[in-house]
């Protein structure tokens, strides 16, 4: 599974992207956030306030309950501030 991080999520984790292989019980975007938060202090800081985060699966916005699979591209970022 390809993960991408943007803005302060990237800064806190210290990575722009990575490949991960979560266990089978990580079935949703929300599950993935919980699993990632346990990987270290940077991750814990990035995912400390889930309500301040947005996610995309395969480049479409996705809710916490959205299902994910190994071949997906999943991104985490703050609410967008372009324009």
């Amino acid at each position, binding site marked *: 599974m390809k993960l*991408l991080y*943007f*803005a*302060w999520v990237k*800064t806190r984790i210290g990575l722009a992207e990575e490949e991960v292989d979560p266990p089978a019980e990580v079935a949703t975007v929300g599950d993935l956030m919980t699993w990632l938060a346990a990987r270290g202090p940077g991750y814990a800081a990035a995912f400390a306030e889930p309500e301040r985060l947005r996610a*995309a699966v395969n*480049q*479409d*916005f996705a809710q916490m309950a959205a299902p994910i699979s190994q071949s997906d591209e999943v*991104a985490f*970022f*703050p*609410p*967008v*501030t*372009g*324009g």
Partner: protein
Amino acid sequence: MIKVQAEDFDIGAELAALSEGRHEIGGLAVFVGLVRAKVANDGAPAAIDAMTLEHYPGMTEKMLAGIEREAQERWPLSASLIIHRYGRLVPGDRIVMTACASAHRHAAFEACEFLMDWLKTKAPFWKLEEQDGEGAWVDARDSDEAARKRWETS
């Protein structure tokens, strides 16, 4: 048409290209966003030296194309354009441009504002502001989300 680019753009040339040879176009509504020297973050205005726009390549184009398609479906547009820059910009620089052509002036205005309101909350860009050598990620504004919600169809 969607353009996501680091380079600046020439508003006049872009609009001329959009209406070139399209003599049924009677009018163009346009919005151009510029980098402000002062921004209100949490209410207090602060002077900024520069900002860097980060984006999510791939998703950006997908979202902008979807927003443009939505506008084309909701208003009778004969042409439309979204240009959004990324990278480092200084105050006064152009960031974004939306343009809509329609035989109906009011439709062109509405569609152009719709494009701006939607891309403000749907296009994956993030602003990092530089002030005295420090960088700070800009917080999303509730007013932008409220502006987008105006356009929701039930």
